[in-house]
C-alpha cells in the first residue's frame, strides 16, 4: 500500500472531507442515541449516557498521551482499525443496548437496574471510543496544520448535525442510526481514497453493507426489538388495548408522532366528580390518543353533538365561559385540541389557536382520518390558526381577546415514572403571563389550568407566584386582589382566572356557585378570608414529611392538640356495617387537606405581601418561572440535596433533576481521573520538560467548559424563538460548529502574532457573550414572530459573531503546542478539552435552574476571560533537555 497523503503539509481534499464526515457521524450518532432514548425510555437518561460516552475522547487522549510513540509508528493501522470498527460498533452496540433496557423507575429498588444502566453506558461508549481514536490519531499526525483539520472537524460536525435533522423526516427513530452509518461510510471511503488504499475502500463498503444488514435483519431473525420501548411509556399501554389501532404515524424533527384509536381511551382532564351524578351520558369511542416520542396520551376529541359534549361544563377549563358569552377566544396551545373544542362548543364567536409544533398542525390539517374525526377543526370557519408559539403571537399582536386559555398543555398528567427532565416551559413564564394579560379586552379573562397532582404541592405554587408577579407587572404594582379567582381539585387540577378589570360581586357569586356545584375547592376570590394560624404547622409538617427525626406517629391515635380527632378515614367508629351510609342533612363540610390550605395561604401572602418568607420556609423551591428560569422542575433546594440521598423514593418525580447532579459528580470524577492520569504517569518523564502545565490545563479546561456551556445554554435560550428543543439544538450545533470552524480556518493567518492578537479575541468573546447574556431574549422574542425560515436565518446571524471568534482559541493553542514540539501536551490538551466539555454540558442545567440562563452564558464568558492569561502558559517554549542551555525559539 502506498501512502500518498502528507498530513504535515498539503493533505488532499478527500482527507479533510473524511475528517468532516467522520466527525459529523459522531455528532449524528449522539443525536440518534438521544432520539432512541427519548422514544424508548427517557430523554434525560439518554443525555447521561451520551455525555459519559463522550469520555471516549478523554480516554483516547489519555492512552495516546502515554503511548504516543506507538501511535506515531502505527498511525495508519490505528486509523484503519478505528474506521473499520466505528460503523459496525454503532450498529451492534445500539442493538445490544436495546436488549438490556433499564428502567428508571426501578433504579433504586432493583439492584439489577444500575448494572443495566452501566451496560448501556459501556455499549454506547464503544463506538465513540473508535470515533475518538480516528480523530485523535489524525490530530496527532496533523498537528502542524491543526487549524485546517479542526476546521474540517467542526464544519463537518455542524453540517452533519443539520443533515441528521433532515434525516429525521426520512427515518423513524428506530432506523435513525442509518444516518451516522452513511456519514461514516462516506467518510471512510474518502479516507481510503485519500490514501489510495483500494482494499481498504472495498473493506469498508463490505463492512457497511454487513452493518446495515445486521441492523435491518437481525431483529427480525432473532425476534428482538430494534428499539425497545419501555412498558412504562404511555404508548405501550395503548398498544396493549385489545382494539388499539394506530391511525397516524409520522416521524420528523418535531417528534415521532403516533395517534391510536381505542375504545379504552377516555379523556376529561380534571373533570368534576359530580359529572357522574348529573350527566345523562358520557360519550364513548370519542377519543384518540396522541403520543409524541411515546409520551402521552393527549386526548384528541371527536366532533360530537351538543348532548354528548355536555361534560365540557364539568371540566375546569370551562370556567371563563361562565362569564363571557360569544367571546373572541385565544387558545395558547392546540395540543390534542380539547381547549379549542371546548371554546367552540361554549359559544366562542371566533377562536384563534396557536401551535408551535408544525408536525401537529400538518397532522390535523392534512390527514383525512384526523380531519374527519375532529370535524376538520383547524379548517373550521370560526378558527384561525397561528403556526407558531401562542406566547409569541400574543406578545406582538394588536388583537385583543375576551378569553385566553392555557389549559393542561402537558398531556395526561404531571406524574411521570422516571422523573422529569429539565424542560423549558416558556409558555408559563412571567413574561408570557404578562403578555396574555395585556392581550385581554378590558373585561377579558385569562384562564390557566395546571395539573395539581403533586403532594406536597409544587408546580401550582410556582404557577400562583408567577401569575401574581405577572399581574403586578401589567397593572403597575397596583392592588391586584380584585383580579384573581382560583379553584383547585385535590390531586387533580388547579385553575387560576385573571380578569383584566377585576371580578364584580355578581361574577364572584356566579363562579362560587359553579365551584360548589363542581365540588371543587375555593382557593381564592376577592374577599376570601384565610386563617393564617395554620401556616407554621403546615410548613413544619411538610418538612417533617421528608425529614422527620422522631418516632413514627400512630395514625389511629388522636393528636395531642386535637383531643377529638377522628380516627383515620375508613376505620370503624364502632357502628355496624353500613352505618356510614347514613344520610346527612345537607352536604357535609368539605374535608380540609393541607395542600389546599397551603394554596389559600399562598394567595393570601402573594397578595398581601410576605410570600418570600413563606417560600423560604417551605420544603420545596417555588420560585417563579421567567424567561431566564422557565422550569417546572428542580424543586429540591440545593442545601437539602444531600439530605435526600437516603430517601430518594420519596421524590421520584425529581429524579430527572437529581440525575443532573449525579451526572455532574460522575463526570467530574471521570474527567479528573482521565486528565490527571497522563500527568501522574509521566510526571518525571513525558511531562518533565514542559513548562506551564497548570496554566495549560487551566486554558483547555476553560475552553472545554466555556464552549459547551455557551452552546448548550444558547440551545435553551433559542427555544424562545424556535419553539422546539430539537430544532434549536440542531441550529445551534450547526451554527456554532460551522462558524467556529470558519474561525479556526481564519485563525491560521494570525498564528505568528498570536501573542498580541489572541488577548483581543478573548476580550471580544467576553464582551459579546456578556452582552448577549442580558439582551438576547429580547431579540429572540421578536424573532419568534417571523416566518420559520427567517427565524432560523436570524438565529444563525446572532450565533455568528461569538461562534466565529470562539473558533480561534482552541486551534491556535493546539497548533502552537504542535509547533513548539510539546507533542504529549498536545494530546493531553485535547483530552482536557473533551473531558471538561462533558462537565460543562452537565453543569448547564444546574446553573440554569439555580441562577438562570443569563448566568449560564456569563459563566461561559468568564471561562474565556480566564483563558486569556492562561494562554501565555500555553505558548511557553519547551525547556531545553540540557540544563543551562538557551531556551529554544518559538516556532
Amino acid at each position, binding site marked *: 500500500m502506498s501512502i500518498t497523503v502528507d498530513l504535515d503539509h498539503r493533505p488532499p481534499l478527500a482527507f479533510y472531507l473524511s475528517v468532516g464526515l467522520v466527525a459529523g457521524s459522531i455528532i449524528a450518532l449522539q443525536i440518534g442515541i438521544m432520539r432512541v432514548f427519548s422514544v424508548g425510555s427517557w430523554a434525560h437518561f439518554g443525555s447521561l449516557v451520551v455525555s459519559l460516552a463522550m469520555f471516549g475522547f478523554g480516554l483516547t487522549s489519555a492512552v495516546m498521551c502515554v503511548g504516543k510513540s506507538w501511535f506515531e509508528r502505527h498511525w495508519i493501522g490505528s486509523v484503519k482499525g478505528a474506521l473499520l470498527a466505528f460503523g459496525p460498533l454503532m450498529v451492534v452496540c445500539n442493538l445490544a443496548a436495546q436488549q438490556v433496557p433499564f428502567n428508571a423507575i426501578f433504579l*433504586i*429498588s432493583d439492584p439489577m437496574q444500575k448494572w443495566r444502566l452501566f451496560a448501556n453506558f459501556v455499549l454506547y461508549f464503544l463506538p465513540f471510543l473508535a470515533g475518538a481514536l480516528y480523530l485523535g490519531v489524525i490530530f496527532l499526525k496533523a498537528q502542524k496544520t491543526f487549524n485546517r483539520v479542526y476546521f474540517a472537524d467542526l464544519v463537518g460536525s455542524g453540517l452533519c448535525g443539520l443533515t441528521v435533522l433532515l434525516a429525521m423526516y426520512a427515518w423513524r427513530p428506530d432506523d435513525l442510526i442509518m444516518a451516522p452509518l452513511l456519514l461514516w461510510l462516506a467518510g471512510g471511503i474518502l479516507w481510503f481514497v485519500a490514501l489510495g488504499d483500494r482494499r481498504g475502500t472495498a473493506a469498508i463498503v463490505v463492512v457497511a453493507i454487513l452493518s446495515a444488514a445486521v441492523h435491518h435483519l437481525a431483529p427480525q431473525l432473532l425476534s428482538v426489538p430494534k428499539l425497545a420501548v419501555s*412498558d412504562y411509556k404511555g404508548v405501550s399501554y395503548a398498544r396493549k388495548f385489545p382494539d388499539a389501532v394506530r391511525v397516524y404515524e409520522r416521524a420528523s424533527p418535531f417528534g415521532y408522532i403516533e395517534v391510536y384509536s381505542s375504545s379504552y381511551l377516555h379523556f376529561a382532564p380534571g373533570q368534576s366528580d359530580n359529572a357522574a351524578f348529573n350527566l345523562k351520558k358520557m360519550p364513548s369511542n370519542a377519543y384518540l390518543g396522541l403520543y409524541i416520542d411515546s409520551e402521552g396520551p393527549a386526548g384528541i376529541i371527536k366532533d360530537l353533538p351538543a348532548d354528548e359534549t355536555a361534560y365540557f361544563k364539568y371540566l375546569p377549563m370551562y370556567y371563563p365561559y361562565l362569564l363571557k358569552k360569544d367571546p373572541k377566544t385565544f387558545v395558547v396551545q392546540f395540543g390534542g385540541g380539547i381547549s379549542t373544542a371546548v371554546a367552540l362548543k361554549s359559544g366562542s364567536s371566533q377562536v384563534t389557536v396557536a401551535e408551535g409544533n408544525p408536525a401537529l398542525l400538518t397532522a390535523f390539517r392534512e390527514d383525512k382520518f384526523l380531519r374527519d374525526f375532529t370535524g376538520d377543526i383547524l379548517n373550521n370557519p370560526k378558527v384561525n390558526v397561528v403556526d407558531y408559539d401562542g406566547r409569541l403571537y400574543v406578545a406582538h399582536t394588536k388583537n385583543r381577546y375576551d378569553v385566553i386559555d392555557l389549559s393542561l398543555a402537558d398531556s395526561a398528567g404531571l406524574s411521570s415514572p*422516571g422523573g422529569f427532565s429539565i424542560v423549558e416551559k416558556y409558555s408559563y413564564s412571567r413574561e408570557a403571563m404578562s403578555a396574555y394579560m395585556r392581550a385581554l379586552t378590558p373585561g377579558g379573562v385569562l384562564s390557566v389550568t395546571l395539573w395539581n*397532582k403533586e403532594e406536597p404541592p409544587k408546580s401550582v405554587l410556582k404557577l400562583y407566584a408567577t401569575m401574581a408577579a405577572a399581574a403586578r407587572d401589567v397593572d403597575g404594582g397596583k392592588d391586584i386582589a380584585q383580579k384573581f379567582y382560583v379553584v383547585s381539585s385535590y390531586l387533580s387540577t388547579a385553575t387560576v382566572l385573571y380578569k383584566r378589570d377585576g371580578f364584580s360581586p355578581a361574577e364572584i357569586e356566579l363562579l362560587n356557585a359553579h365551584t360548589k356545584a363542581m365540588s371543587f375547592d375555593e382557593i381564592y376570590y376577592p374577599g376570601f378570608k384565610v386563617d393564617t394560624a395554620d401556616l407554621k404547622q403546615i410548613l413544619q409538617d411538610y418538612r417533617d*414529611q421528608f425529614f422527620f427525626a422522631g418516632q413514627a406517629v400512630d395514625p389511629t391515635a388522636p393528636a395531642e392538640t386535637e383531643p377529638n380527632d377522628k380516627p383515620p378515614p375508613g376505620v370503624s367508629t364502632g357502628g355496624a356495617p353500613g352505618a356510614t351510609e347514613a*344520610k346527612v342533612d345537607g352536604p357535609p363540610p368539605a374535608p380540609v387537606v393541607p395542600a389546599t390550605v397551603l394554596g389559600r395561604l399562598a394567595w393570601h401572602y402573594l397578595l398581601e405581601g410576605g410570600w418570600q418568607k413563606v417560600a423560604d420556609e417551605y420544603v420545596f423551591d417555588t420560585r417563579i418561572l421567567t424567561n431566564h428560569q422557565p422550569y417546572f422542575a428542580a424543586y429540591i433546594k440545593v442545601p437539602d440535596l444531600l439530605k435526600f440521598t437516603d430517601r430518594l423514593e420519596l421524590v421520584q418525580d425529581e429524579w430527572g433533576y437529581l440525575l443532573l447532579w449525579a451526572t455532574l459528580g460522575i463526570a467530574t470524577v471521570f474527567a479528573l481521573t482521565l486528565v490527571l492520569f497522563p500527568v501522574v504517569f509521566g510526571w518525571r518523564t513525558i511531562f518533565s520538560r514542559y513548562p506551564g502545565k497548570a496554566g495549560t490545563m487551566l486554558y483547555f479546561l476553560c475552553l472545554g467548559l466555556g464552549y459547551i456551556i455557551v452552546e448548550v445554554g444558547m440551545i435553551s435560550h433559542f427555544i424562545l424563538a424556535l419553539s422546539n428543543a430539537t430544532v434549536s439544538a440542531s441550529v445551534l450545533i450547526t451554527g456554532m460548529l460551522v462558524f467556529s470552524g470558519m474561525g479556526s480556518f481564519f485563525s491560521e493567518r494570525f498564528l505568528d502574532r498570536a501573542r498580541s492578537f489572541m488577548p483581543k479575541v478573548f476580550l471580544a468573546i467576553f464582551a459579546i457573550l456578556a452582552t448577549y447574556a442580558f439582551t438576547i431574549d429580547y431579540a429572540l422574542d421578536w424573532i419568534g414572530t417571523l416566518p420559520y425560515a427567517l427565524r432560523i436565518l436570524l438565529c444563525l446571524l446572532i450565533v455568528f459573531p461569538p461562534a466565529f471568534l470562539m473558533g480561534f482559541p482552541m486551534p491556535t493553542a493546539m497548533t502552537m503546542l504542535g509547533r513548539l514540539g510539546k507533542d504529549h501536551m498536545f494530546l493531553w490538551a485535547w483530552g482536557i478539552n473533551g473531558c471538561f466539555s462533558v462537565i460543562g454540558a452537565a453543569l448547564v442545567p444546574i446553573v440554569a435552574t439555580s441562577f438562570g440562563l443569563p448566568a449560564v452564558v456569563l459563566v461561559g464568558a468568564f471561562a474565556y476571560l480566564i483563558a486569556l492569561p492562561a494562554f501565555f502558559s500555553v505558548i511557553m517554549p519547551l525547556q531545553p533537555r540540557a540544563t543551562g542551555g538557551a531556551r529554544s525559539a518559538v516556532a
Partner: protein
Amino acid sequence: MKRRTFVSGSVALAAGALAAPAIAATIKPYSWDLNPPMDSRENFIAWGKARGEDPVFLGQRWDRFQALIKNKDIWGQATMRAFLLTPREEFSAISPAIAKRAYEHAFLDIGYGVTMSGPHVQGRMTNVIDVKRGEKVLEIGTGSGVQSAYIANLTENAYTIEIIAPLAQRTRGLYDKLIDKGYTEFKHIKAKTADGFYGWEEAGPFDKIIVTCGIDHVPPPLLQQLKSGGLMVIPVGPPGAQRVLKVTKTQAADGSITTSREDIYGGKIVPFVPFTKLEGDKIVGTHNR
C-alpha cells in the same frame, strides 16, 4: 442470612416448579376461623408450617409484618390477619427476577408496564378502606393480584377488573392454581377482563372501590356504582412515591349527591420515617442504604 434465604428460596421454587403439573391441596383450606398467631415469630412460623407453607417465606412475612406495624402501615386486627394469611411469594413467583423479593419494601416489575406495589403501601390502602365482612369491594387494575388477595381475606365479595388481557388471564390462572393448592379464600375473588372505566355494573353497588391505574379524572361510572357513604381510594403519583386520594360519596337528605376529596389520612401530613431494612428480626436503617 441472605444466602440461606436465597438457597432455601430457590429450593422451594424449584420444588414448586417440579410439583406444578399436578397440584394437590397442600395448604390447609381457608376458613374465617383461621387465626394466625401474632405473639411471636416462632409461633407464627410453626402455625404457618402446619398450614403447609414455606417456613422461609413465613419468616419473611413475619418480619415485614413487624415493620408494617412499627411504621403504622397496618393497625386493624382484620388487616393484620389478612396480611399474615396472604402468601405474597406466590404472586411474585410469576417472574424469576422478583420471585424472592415478595416481602421487600419495594414495588416490583411484573411485566406489561405494571408494578406490584410494596407491602407498606398495600397495607395502608387495605387498612384504610377498612373492609367489613360481607361488603362489596371493587378493584380496578388487578395487576399482580395481591391487593385483591388481601381483600379476599376480609370479605367474600371481592371484584377485580384488569384491562390488559394477558395479565388478567395470568393472574386469574394464578388464583385458580392457588385455590387448587388450598388457598380457598381466593374463591372470594371475581375477576374479569374489561375496561375498568365502566366498572362492574351488574355486581354493584360497591361499598369500597380501589382504583390502581393512572387516570385524568375519576370515571363517572365508578362514582355511580359506589354506594352513598362509600369510599374510593386512588393512588396518585409515580410508583414508590404515591399519595393515596380518597373520594367519599355522600347523599344529603334532599337526595343531592356530593363527593369530597382528601388524603387518606384525613388532613394529617404523615411524617417520613425511614423505611426499614430487615436483618434477621432486627429493623435497621433505610432499605436503600
